[in-house]
């Protein structure tokens, strides 16, 4: 697709959970180098970051974050530090990729420009109100199929693009304990809109989003008591995604899933997965409790921006989920605090 992507439209936000980013950035150089990078150093990390030359980038450390945010109850350590990057960005689009992921190869052996694919996803409409069986109708070589109502063919703005992962798929700890050697080798050549009201697990490993329209809804909310540095020891992105999908559905905005793939390294052996299981089990249990809530949540018509929606959701979470587990009460507080931060730090220039 020959869509024009302006350099100054995109920020690439990287949460640095490892100190040596050299290999990561060198591999991504062909696709990252034209864009500005916002690199957030995990506040828990002692060592200095190693970043190869030739990138237009800005690094934010724990002290930078403290200076900009002031006192805040939100804990930005671990994978949640990326949200700080979303906050301080001033670009229309953000692409965010975990630092243990490299460019993948498609079925022709060509390296995938994940950044470009996310932007294409975000710049072409989504179609949440009817499922197109040939997947993305705006893709070259595809279209709407017979029976797709014409009135729905303009689509809506796509504000979230959820990419996938080859090699180490984003499985939870129990699955990895059972299948430590499984690798995702299936490259599914499709992007599709996730239909309205369908709930989905949004993985934070490989995403792009429209910061202008969706910004405050990408939020650090749910922090597990035993949250760790591995993705399978967190639920923060899953919680964020469930909230974000509700916001998108309510505002009539679209979410796509599928391409681009990234290649995710660093698997875990069975014993490591067992350790993670002890941490993540809490998250697995919590998911069971939230499903009925997200299945039935409805936002008032007065909520017309992402900010409005997050505030409304926070109140509902506090009221309906808070009594079930203090983690939810904290999440609700974090969501309110996040909107405050967003108003103070985030929205200028957006």
């Amino acid at each position: 697709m020959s869509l024009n992507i302006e350099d100054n439209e995109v920020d690439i936000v990287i949460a640095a959970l490892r100190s040596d980013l050299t290999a990561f950035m060198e591999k991504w150089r062909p696709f990252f180098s034209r864009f500005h990078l916002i690199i957030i150093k995990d506040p828990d990390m002692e060592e200095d970051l190693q970043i190869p030359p030739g990138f237009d980038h800005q690094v934010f450390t724990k002290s930078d974050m403290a200076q900009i945010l002031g006192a805040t109850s939100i804990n930005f350590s671990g994978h949640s530090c990326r949200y700080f990057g979303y906050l301080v960005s001033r670009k229309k689009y953000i692409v965010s990729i975990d630092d243990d992921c490299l460019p993948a190869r498609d079925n022709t052996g060509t390296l995938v420009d994940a950044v470009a694919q996310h932007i294409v996803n975000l710049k072409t409409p989504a179609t949440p109100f009817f499922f197109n069986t040939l997947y993305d109708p705006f893709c070259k070589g595809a279209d709407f199929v017979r029976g797709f109502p014409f009135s729905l063919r303009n689509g809506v703005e796509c504000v979230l693009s959820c990419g996938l992962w080859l090699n180490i798929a984003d499985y939870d700890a129990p699955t990895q304990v059972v299948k430590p050697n499984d690798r995702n080798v299936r490259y599914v050549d499709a992007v599709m809109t996730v239909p309205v009201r369908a709930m989905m697990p949004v993985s934070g490993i490989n995403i792009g989003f429209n910061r202008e329209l969706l910004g405050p809804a990408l939020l650090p909310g749910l922090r597990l008591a035993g949250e760790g540095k591995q993705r399978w020891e967190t639920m923060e992105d899953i919680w964020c995604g469930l909230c974000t999908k509700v916001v998108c559905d309510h505002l009539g905005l679209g979410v796509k899933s599928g391409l681009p793939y990234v290649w995710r390294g660093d698997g875990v052996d069975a014993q490591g997965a067992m350790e993670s299981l002890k941490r993540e089990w809490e998250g697995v249990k919590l998911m069971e409790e939230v499903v009925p809530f997200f299945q039935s949540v409805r936002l008032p018509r007065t909520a017309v921006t992402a900010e409005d929606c997050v505030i409304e959701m926070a109140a509902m979470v506090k009221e309906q989920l808070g009594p079930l587990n203090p983690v939810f009460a904290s999440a609700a507080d974090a969501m309110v605090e996040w909107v405050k931060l967003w108003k103070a730090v985030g929205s200028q220039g957006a």
Partner: protein
Amino acid sequence: MVDSGSNGAVPSTPLLKDELDIVIPTIRNLDFLEMWRPFFQPYHLIIIQDGDPSKTIRVPEGFDYKLYNRNDINRMLGPKASCISFKDSACRCFGFLISKKKYIFTIDDDCFVAKDPSGKELNALEQHIRNLLSPSTPFFFNTLYDPFRKGADFVRGYPFSLREGVATAVSHGLWLNIPDYDAPTQLVKPLERNTRFVDAVLTIPKGTLFPMCGMNLAFNRELIGPAMYFGLMGDDQPIGRYDDMWAGWCSKVICDHLALGVKTGLPYIWHSKASNAFANLKKEYNGIYWQEEMVPFFQSVKFPKECTTVQKCYIELSKQVKARLGKVDPYFNKLADSMVTWIEAWDEFNPSENMGAAAAEVPNGPAQGK
């Protein structure tokens, strides 16, 4: 059963040769069956001959089949035959009605065996069977698509309580080469060919409608059969090429109500024939306008909780069609009536079956013929 370790062979899919009928509507000939022989030969074929019943349809040697033409349909259904379309592939649903098998696979006579990107010929029927025999997951979208396929699983964040899934009622396959476009799109893009092989099967979420194409379709007749009525199309009707759309929307809302699953994606077939775009435009013309009313109708259909079987849901649906779509065009009153006739015919030909939700264990009737 072969162990499905990471480099083991895929467990073999059961043939189901005594539990599945292949229904093929045709007006021309069945030469295409020759290419399908390795995959179709074990099965019983139900051929529905549309158009002039005095014409002889040549069936390649060696297939076990029964052919029904318009005379047979009229004779077997009597006055109820009015619900079966003439001069439209919608007539295929007569085959669904009279089948005694648990599963149906229906395919058009211009659909051939497709190849995957490695050049391997695809056994579409086997993939449909796999889709139907494994659960669907309509309540939560899995970003790695069908979690029951080898090499995939549920992703992090997928609630464990939803991982059993529900029974799969429908398996909707796709097409390489000539895509299933409507007439306006065909006119604008006459040369477009679908060359993208998307290696995925996925469940269509609950509450989401889709355009169900009848040219490469399989379903569990015991779970959803009575909802697979392909409507009044073709000769003497103001609409054509919406038969499968109609069946798809009716069956999807019923599946959603009864907690049954609908999958789409693999298998691909190779669709060889592009029908005439101008002829299609004439047939679809009303449909293109009416679907703007039909889709919101289906999106808002609600079934009372007393509708616990497919037939009850379908009768209820026919009432709602009459009440809410009747004002769009008198055609919908006729369609609603024929929906009722269809259920009467279904119950007459399938008296012992109780088309309920997956939990009920349904005894198969005696197998017919071979």
